[in-house]
């Protein structure tokens, strides 16, 4: 397992994930900087991503879509905030409408990538997600991190179990 830590800080509305790779910082940077590499990991195999616009410069916009098994193509975008190869990339990730324009009704979260050389041919990559509000953070916590997930799934299980009992009686 290359994920070495997952931290969350409710006070500062951040969540950080650390991972370590047997590779140089330049190689890890390439995973973000080369859109063809990015396409091989951003989406799962069932929802591969295609980056149709990709220029990692402050102020530029990256555009992508995912392609689902039924051919559906949800769209997303990044607004690039800060770039310092091969050490740092910062962007705001959001959902886009079918025509590719940003959907600003949905929350965007800021993602900060920090790449650090550890020596011995190893590199640490930290992903920090910063959320605009407590509500947006709760939402993402409920999406799959720690207590948020456990709690929501627990509640849903309880609901479904209660319903099954009610249906039998």
């Amino acid at each position, binding site marked *: 397992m*290359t*994920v070495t830590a997952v931290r969350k800080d409710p006070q500062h509305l951040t969540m950080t*994930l650390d*991972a370590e*790779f*047997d*590779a*140089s910082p*330049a*190689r*890890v940077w390439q*995973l973000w900087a080369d859109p063809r*590499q990015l396409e*091989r*990991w*951003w989406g*799962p195999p069932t929802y591969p991503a295609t980056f149709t616009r990709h220029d990692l410069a402050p102020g530029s916009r990256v555009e992508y879509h*995912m392609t*689902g098994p*039924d051919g*559906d193509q*949800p769209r*997303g975008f990044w607004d690039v905030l800060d770039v310092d190869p091969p050490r740092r990339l910062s962007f705001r990730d959001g*959902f886009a409408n079918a025509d590719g324009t940003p*959907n600003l009704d*949905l*929350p965007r979260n800021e993602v900060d990538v920090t790449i650090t050389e550890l020596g011995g041919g190893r590199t640490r*990559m930290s*992903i920090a997600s910063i959320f605009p509000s407590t*509500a947006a953070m*709760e*939402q*993402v*916590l*409920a*999406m*799959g*991190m720690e207590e*948020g*997930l456990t709690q*929501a*799934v627990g*509640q*849903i*299980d*309880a*609901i*479904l179990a*209660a*319903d099954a009992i*009610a249906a039998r009686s």
Partner: protein
Amino acid sequence: MQVAPSDFDRMFGALADATRRDIVRRAIDGGEGVAELAVHYAMSFAAVQKHVAILERAGLVTKERIGRRKVVRTNLEGLLVARRLLDQYEELWRGRIGRMTALVTEPVEDRDP
């Protein structure tokens, strides 16, 4: 049922609030309208109405007319989808890191390391 990211967002946003989860639990019976639900919470009718509207947009509850009354009922299919999506999201970043690891350990082709 295929769900787009915007639907994930609405669904998880809806379930991220304790009051709304409680409304979803209570509305399984489908016996209460918004006014009756509001009695259970230390908040205004308008606030409860807003929570119900968020759940409705997320597909987690529906409003049904029974005679002259309108009751709020939990949409169980929506919940099953939500649970499946929660499981998927848990693995999202770990999956990405796994794929990144596979990529960086691939033999280098035509580029300098």
